[in-house]
């Protein structure tokens, strides 16, 4: 093992040791973040039992710490392992659209492409650019200084009205594009944007995804290269370049967009099955979920011995107020402290209906809080 690799792993191990000393449950924001993560995982990947969610959430938080470290540590970019069709994918002969995900140490792809001398355009959300743009540019500038890289690099904000045209111009000028196709909280669909999205299957659900990437690929005749970054148990980063998705000239653009985006999400799904604790999207994918048809939750009969429906609802005791979280519909309810106490101690009450009143009891049964 090279000394740099040994040092890198040593540093990450120290990172992990420090992380393990943190009492996560005392961190503000932990409960709501974990509950959202858990609901998303359950709705999309129900094969993972709820009992494993917290362990996977902690794994994700640790991966995020590692990702921050990698972004600032140049050596991380020298130590990655390349898999798949990387020789073709990293050629500088023609532009490509590198489609990646918020998976593993996801910023390392940009660093690698720039190190390899590719002229790159990174497409990010406006907020991401505001919060992380300077950091990304600092990394690139340092690479220019230390590694004498002369190639170009530019960030384009996806929310800018002329973003599509700018990217198309850059692709036609021979520059490659880097896109995170799994979106970010700020790129989730708004009511007036349905024409910009299409629906793809992800595990047990369907999600909305922007079709701009497929459109650009088809319009510019540039292949899409799916790339997954993940971390192995020995802490090394792997960049897996999957087979390119090539647009066929004169083919139907909408059909190509649908097929290309589905292939990109199939690649994500395959990786999720292997490393479920490395995808940041678990924290916000609910904003992209296609709504499910309403299910009949109540038989109409009032239960004689009601129990709290833990499968569907989670009680979160926040600092300001107790909250009931509907894991299926992602609806949040503020509840009184007395109702919270009752839901936690239903078996100690002779008649729940008698205590809360007929109307409230009916509402709780109708909502599926009691079953």
């Amino acid at each position: 093992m090279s000394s740099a690799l040994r040092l890198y792993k040593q540093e990450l191990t120290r990172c992990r040791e420090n992380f393990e000393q943190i009492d996560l449950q005392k961190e503000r924001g932990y409960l709501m973040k974990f509950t959202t993560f858990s609901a998303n995982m359950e709705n999309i990947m129900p094969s993972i039992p709820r009992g494993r969610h917290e362990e996977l959430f902690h794994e994700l938080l640790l991966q995020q710490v590692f990702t921050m470290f990698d972004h600032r540590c140049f050596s991380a970019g020298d130590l990655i392992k390349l898999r798949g069709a990387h020789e073709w994918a990293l050629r500088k002969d023609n532009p490509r659209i590198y489609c990646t995900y918020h998976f593993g140490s996801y910023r390392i792809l940009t660093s690698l492409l720039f190190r390899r001398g590719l002229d790159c355009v990174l497409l990010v959300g406006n907020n991401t650019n505001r919060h992380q743009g300077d950091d990304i540019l600092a990394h690139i500038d340092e690479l220019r200084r230390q590694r004498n890289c002369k190639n170009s690099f530019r960030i384009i904000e996806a929310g800018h009205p002329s973003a599509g045209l700018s990217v198309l111009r850059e692709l036609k000028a021979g520059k490659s594009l880097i896109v995170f196709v799994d979106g970010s909280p700020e790129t989730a669909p708004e009511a007036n944007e349905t024409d910009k999205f299409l629906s793809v299957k992800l595990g047990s659900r369907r999600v909305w995804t922007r079709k701009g990437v497929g459109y650009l690929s088809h319009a510019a005749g540039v292949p899409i290269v799916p790339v997954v970054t993940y971390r192995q148990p020995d802490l090394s980063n792997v960049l897996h370049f999957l087979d390119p998705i090539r647009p066929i000239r004169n083919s139907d653009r909408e059909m190509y967009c649908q097929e290309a985006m589905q292939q990109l999400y199939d690649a994500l799904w395959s990786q999720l099955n292997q490393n479920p604790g490395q995808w940041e999207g678990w924290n916000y994918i609910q904003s992209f979920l296609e709504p499910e048809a309403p299910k009949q939750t109540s038989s109409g009969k009032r239960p004689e011995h009601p129990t709290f429906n833990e499968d569907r609802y989670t009680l979160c005791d926040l600092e300001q107020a107790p909250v009931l979280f509907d894991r299926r519909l992602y609806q949040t309810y503020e509840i009184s402290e007395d109702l919270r106490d009752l839901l936690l101690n239903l078996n100690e009450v002779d008649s729940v209906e008698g205590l809360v009143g007929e109307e409230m009891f009916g509402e709780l049964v109708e909502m599926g809080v009691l079953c």
Partner: protein
Amino acid sequence: MKKQFSIKPVQNQKNTVASAAKKEAHNLLKFLKPGECCETMPYFHGLNRETVFSL
């Protein structure tokens, strides 16, 4: 004192929660804030002094 049983849906916007839950959800976990990770993790001392570094 008479017990109060109430349940009030919180209006969702883009599926994010509001009110108490929103305040809670918008609090980034402290150790993941770039400015504060160094306090929580003394190990990250290098990150404060230099933007980027090599091993």
